[in-house]
Structures are given as structure tokens and as C-alpha cells.
């Protein structure tokens, strides 16, 4: 009984996914870019990455034809001052979901080739360790309250 209870969540995790992009054990979902003022030289993207495999996965690089470069950032508040720290990569443990969300981890997209309006689609290419990469389409969305 107790063994079944312990195994059950793992089975649910393994079977229940219909990811937007997938390399068997890696899935990227809810990828969106926040619509920004047309003059903004930087945009932010948010997403969820799930590692349903049994090994750690490492996100090492992201690029896109629509931006000059993309960095992994986290907004942090230290002594009432807000800043962003850059991360060279993100490691995600087995059976773990990692979220990039407003006010926290985000992809910082530099120099958009065009402003982009809500509803537009933009391709981002995610590069993981061990030469795993795939392209995911991001939708530009307006920020709602607190997003």
C-alpha cells in the first residue's frame, strides 16, 4: 500500500504531459513574452520547464532570430533595492518543474528586431546540455495585474 502511494505521483508525472515542446524527458510550456512599450530595448519572457527524466538537465543557452541575444536573469530585492542577477545556466533536478515568472526568474531578450504586439508569435531556441535543443514558439501577451 505504502509503496503504491509512493510510486503513484511518479506515474502521474510521467504519463500526464502533453508538452508544447519535448525531448522525451524535457518539456517547455506556458512560454510567453510580455508586450512592452514600443521603445523598450529589452523584453522579458516567462515559461515553465519540467524535467520528467531521471537525470538532471541543464539549460545553457537560448537564442532567437528576433533578438540580438538572450540572458537568463532573476529579479531580486536586496535591502529594498531591486536588481537582476544573471545566471549562466539553470540546472533542473529529476522530477522537478522550474518556473520563470514575473518578478523572479525571466529570460531577458535584448534588442528586438521589431516591437511586437500582443498575439504575435516569436520562435526561441533552447539549448540544453548534451546537445539537446528545440525551438518553441512564444506568444506575445499583455501583462495583467501583477504579471
Amino acid at each position, binding site marked *: 500500500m505504502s509503496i503504491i502511494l509512493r510510486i503513484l505521483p511518479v506515474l502521474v508525472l510521467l504519463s500526464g504531459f502533453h508538452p508544447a515542446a519535448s525531448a522525451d524527458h524535457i518539456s517547455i510550456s506556458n512560454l510567453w513574452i510580455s508586450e*512592452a*512599450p514600443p521603445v523598450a530595448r*529589452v523584453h522579458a519572457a516567462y515559461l515553465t520547464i519540467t524535467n520528467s527524466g531521471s537525470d538532471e538537465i541543464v539549460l545553457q543557452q537560448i537564442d532567437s532570430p528576433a533578438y540580438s541575444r538572450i540572458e537568463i*536573469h532573476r529579479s531580486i530585492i536586496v535591502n529594498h533595492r*531591486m536588481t537582476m542577477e544573471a545566471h549562466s545556466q539553470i540546472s533542473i533536478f529529476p522530477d522537478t518543474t522550474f518556473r520563470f515568472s514575473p518578478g523572479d526568474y*525571466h529570460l*531577458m531578450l535584448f534588442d528586438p528586431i521589431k516591437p511586437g504586439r500582443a498575439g504575435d508569435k516569436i520562435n526561441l531556441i533552447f539549448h540544453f546540455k548534451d546537445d539537446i535543443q528545440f525551438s518553441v514558439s512564444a506568444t506575445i501577451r499583455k*501583462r495583467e495585474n*501583477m504579471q
Partner: protein
Amino acid sequence: MTGNSTIRTLTIIITLVAFGAGIGVFSARQKQPVLAPQIQGMLWPNPKILQDFSTTDQNEQEFKLSDLRGKWSFLFFGYTNCPDICPITLAVFKDVYQKLQEQKRSNDVQMIFVSVDPERDSSQQLKDYVAYFNNNFIGLGGSLEQISTLTKQMGIAYYHEEASPEGDYLVGHSASVFLVDPEGRVITIMSAPHTAEEIIEQFSEIRAFISQQTS
């Protein structure tokens, strides 16, 4: 002898009772004024009284202390190359202002975005940036020196981080929203994260309280 000591004891008791009553009356008087709302970041009874400053607004006009007078001003300090916290806060400002407009309470309210990166944020850049959120929003810039006439008084610390090889740099800055009353006093410093509902509720309480103080 005994009579004398009785009178003396009585005198002491009466004095003590009178003194005690006096304390009672005194403390009752202390309690009479309406208490400031229990809001985190409320500076009352010691608001920060602003001195004159000189910045440049999005229309390249000088913006100084007198431009804060007669209005309730919400200020946020950031920069247009900040993709996460700044637009999040300005989107909240947009919501706050829109709700106040719907309630017909926005006439004496102004929302102000102050650039702590005025070298990159030109007046035109600020104009387009704030207008994206609301046409009535104000964007303040000018030289770093000008900006500091305001930030120093408000205790806004910010720093420009080292530039990347591409020449980009980040700016660390306050994540708080500052509420200045129509007398030019900083009444409340609201810490992040912010929601429109919370800001409106606190604003209503503060406004009611300050009008009681001056009436």
C-alpha cells in the same frame, strides 16, 4: 499626635488620588487624535518634507516641487531598459489609475515614473514609454545631477552596474512606491510586491486620515 498623623496620611492619599486622576486625564487627551492607519511603510507622524528639486519631464519641461503641490503623487523609480520589475509596477500603476478614474477620484492624482538612468532615457524615450501605460503618466529625467536633487531627498539609492561586453548595464534601484501628499510630504513608502487593490485601499485610508489632520 495621632490626629496630626491621620491628617498627614489623608493629605498624602488625596494627593496621590489627584495625581492618578491627572495621569488619567492626560492619557485620555493623548488618545484623542485619530490614529494613523496601520499601514506598513507609513511615515506619519514624521513624513519626509520635500525641498525643491529640478527634473525634466517627458515634454522637456522643468518639473519641480511646485508640480507636486495640490496633487497626490505616486512615484516609482526605474529605467526603461528594465524588463521585469519596472513594467510590472507600471502595469499596476495603470490599473490603480484606471480604477481611480472609474471612481472619479483621479483628478488630483498623478502617477510618476522617475528614471534613474537618465543618460539612456531621453525625454522622448520616457514620453513613449510612459504613454504606453497611460497618456496621463509623467516620466521624469534630466541629467544625473538633476535626478539626484530628488532621489537624494527621498533616500533612493541606486547604482549602475558594470557594463557587459555589448555595452549594456543594469541599474539597481528602489522597488518601493512612494506616495507624496498635496503638501509635498512623503507620507508612505510601499514595499514591493504591489497590487492595485492594495494600493487603492491604502491610498483611501491615508487620504481620509490626512484630511482629518488638516481640517
